[in-house]
């Protein structure tokens, strides 16, 4: 799957989409969900919690592994996807859409500049980026 063109990406396979109102929605990429296998549980952050870029904001668990998710850009959590509590496999089915994990208010545009654009990310994945 070529990645969606309206997102920015981290080297650890998280994505972030800036929304018109200036907040940003974040989740994990197709590469990550495929690598993890069937997701059975997601530990989401509390609303109101603040993270810096690269802080662990969530943990995604499959049967055999538990993966930390790193915050793509620093900010404060405004909303989390409650659907993932009962249907964690939504991340497997639709990682860029219904499988979104949190909405944050972005603290620094500078953080966003560190991220990869879609073409860069596609190239990164094709070259075996991350693990």
């Amino acid at each position, binding site marked *: 799957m070529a990645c969606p063109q309206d997102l920015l990406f981290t080297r650890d396979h998280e994505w972030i989409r800036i929304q018109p109102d200036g907040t940003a929605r974040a989740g994990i990429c197709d590469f990550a969900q495929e690598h993890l296998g069937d997701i059975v*549980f997601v*530990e989401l952050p509390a609303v109101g919690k603040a993270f810096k870029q690269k802080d662990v904001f969530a943990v995604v*668990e*499959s*049967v*055999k*592994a*538990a993966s*930390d998710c790193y915050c793509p850009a620093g900010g404060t959590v405004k909303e989390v996807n409650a659907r993932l509590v009962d249907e964690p496999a939504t991340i497997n089915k639709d990682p860029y859409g219904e499988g979104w994990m949190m909405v944050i208010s972005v603290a620094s545009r500078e953080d966003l500049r560190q991220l990869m654009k879609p073409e860069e990310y596609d190239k990164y994945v094709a070259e075996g980026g991350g693990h």
Partner: protein
Amino acid sequence: MKYLPHTEADRKKMLETIGVSRMEDLFADIPEGVRFKGRLDVPPALSDPELMRHLRELASRNRTVDDYTSYLGGGAYDHFLPSVVDHVASRNEFYTAYTPYQPEVSQGTLQTMYEYQSLMCELLGMDVSNASMYDGATAAAEAALISCRHTERKKAAVAATVHPEWRQVLRTYMWGRDLEVVELPHAGGVTDVERAKALLGPDVACLIVQHPNFFGCLEPVEELEKLAHAAGGLFVAGVDPISLGVLKPPGEYGADFAVGEGQSLGNHLNFGGPYLGFFTCTEKLMRRMPGRISGQTLDANGQRGFVLALATREQHIRREKATSNICSNEALCALAAAVYLTTLGPRGIKHVAELCLHKAHYLHDRVAMLERFKPAFSAPFFKEFVVRSQLPAGRVISGLLEDRIMAGPDVGRFYPDLKDHLLFCVTERRTREELDHLVARLEGSL
């Protein structure tokens, strides 16, 4: 040597297959500088009859609770073990099995774990149980560490009436993580609620209480639970599982974690170990649980089976982010506990608890009439109580020993302000004749 099957012919054939001429060649990677020269300093091998004779000699230099009448308690208890327990626990398929990482050939272990978990939840009134920790003391310590992590606070409060060795273990574990422990003082053998209020602030992650406590007294658990929760901390109840035949279980008075020593459930005294730490919690805290847990599922044919569940919490997957470093647990002791609880059933656990309760109160009331001994506290108690002695504790203990009675321990060893106080425990094994005899000795010839 009977544990080493290889004959010289076997070894020769194997060395040939490997392609070396001598055993020594296989150790070529070990540098000269670290080779051990000479023989290990352990005694020469004993044949089986010699070994048995030696072990019997060692065993004969011990006095047991079968040879002597024991009133020893303090965290390890002389309860009656139904015969079925050891018959089950000594099945080769149970005791020589490995950890059930290959569930398809471990359903015996996994289903008995699940049943143990269920039985403990029922007894304690809690939502989830793990498959065991090392003992009550480490279970309580791990509950404290988890509480600190969960609440993001750095202090654990523990009642001074909690078993002294539990508190020592707690201090060691908390120091390990650079966390603090604060103790809540007692008055009259029970935690002082007023003074507890002052010590339970917004920096306290949990309150650990034992009920009955080390002195055998019942604690004001409902009030303490409210204080702990009002301060935003978690409430850890350490309980005697036998007491739950008559006492309200911790799940009904708001415990977040209910832990304790499960040795009373089908395990021998074993001079202090192996014992059984049980660890249960509410559903909310389930993912914080340490150790192994068995969960139900289906196999490829839709048949019910069991697997290790929530394994992503554990060290072999989560490594430094695991909920605990625990790997090997006390599985066989938990199996014994499961058999014991199954054997006792709801009537049996009530029956054994009532026998302990009534016999302990009988002894207590008779001791209360003596000149030189008095119960130290007036709080309600279950099967243990503290006696203040006008004679030095050591003299009482050695005097009774001459009459083949084991009393104590001397509480003063653990609580410096309680010198010459003795802890007495009465289980269902003590008969009225034995109790009367003890009273007569205390009264008379000491």
